[in-house]
């Protein structure tokens, strides 16, 4: 298993669910999910296997040994099966904040999405605490209200509502920013 130098604890668990340092073997599932859900990611073209291999080799593999990486990524597991991935990205070590990102397998329905997201957010909050972050935050396009429910359930608050801030299917849609201040 890969391990992050910057973390003492590598695996964060809740019941049968866990997040572990991102696994090479999950890269093509991740690619597929990203391509299926491009509409709510900051991604403007489908990824190919070559793109994904290159990204894991040139970017991901270098994150593990850094004292202060700008992102740390995890595979989200149910048992041993990867059901999503995400992490803390744009880590600002000076102002001690980081953006939460994650994506789940599209096969999850709305109910599962909320349940699995709530658990994921609990686990990634623990990572933020271990990194001594002061705050974690996340962005979301304002067109799928159920996606915001897990944030409220995890104590995130709406910080900003940016009008006409993203172009989706030729329409300018708002972007919401949510954040959570972490416990010392």
């Amino acid at each position, binding site marked *: 298993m890969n391990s992050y130098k910057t973390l003492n604890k590598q695996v964060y668990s809740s019941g049968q669910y866990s997040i572990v340092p991102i696994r090479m073997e999950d890269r093509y599932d991740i690619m597929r999910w990203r391509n299926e859900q491009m509409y709510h990611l900051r991604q403007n073209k489908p990824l190919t296997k070559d793109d994904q291999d290159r990204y894991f080799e040139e970017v991901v593999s270098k994150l593990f040994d850094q004292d202060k990486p700008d992102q740390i990524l995890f595979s989200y597991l149910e048992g041993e099966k990867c059901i999503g991935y995400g992490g803390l990205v744009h880590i600002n070590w*000076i*102002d*001690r904040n980081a953006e939460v990102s994650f994506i789940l397998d599209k096969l999850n329905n709305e109910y599962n999405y909320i349940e699995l997201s709530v658990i994921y957010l609990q686990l990634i909050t623990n990572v933020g605490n271990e990194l001594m972050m002061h*705050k974690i935050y996340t962005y979301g396009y304002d067109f799928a209200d159920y996606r915001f429910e897990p944030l409220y359930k995890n104590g995130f608050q709406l910080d900003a*509502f940016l009008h*006409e801030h*993203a*172009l989706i299917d030729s329409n300018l849609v708002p972007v919401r920013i949510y954040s959570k201040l972490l416990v010392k």
Partner: protein
Amino acid sequence: MIYFENLTSLSTQDKYKFIKWKKDLQLCDLIMSSPVELTIDGVNEWIYKNSNDANQFFKSVVRVEDKQVIGLARLMFIDNVAKHAEIGLYIGDSIDRSKNAGVNILNLLLQVAESKYRLNKVYAKIHEGNMGSIRLFCNAGFIKEGTLRQHYYSRISNCFKDVYIYSTFLK
């Protein structure tokens, strides 16, 4: 009045101004930047990197009357799809800050955003203690869209500060 000029054409004397400004604690705190001690090579590298960023408009601010470089103006993270960008500007020396220069820089940047980049929206991030910038952007018609709670750690105040997002639409 002011105009914008490429930083690549700065004289060595003007580069030393940026060296001074980039380590000025008070200025860095106002613009939420980490103070850095740069050499001339370091400034050249900073200029090269930013001037070659396709998603950035990055210029020095020059005062017409005496051709003095007084600050920096930029549009950052230019999003050519959603048509927005973040505005950043500063006037390096406090003595130059009370002469309407901020208003002139902002107006010129708004013109660039609209005419050169055809943007729909521009926004600025300003921390709660930077009253001069808050006044500047409010007076220019910018609206507060949100508050990023405790998003910036001020080394001068030794505490976290809220960061406001101010924006305006151009069309």
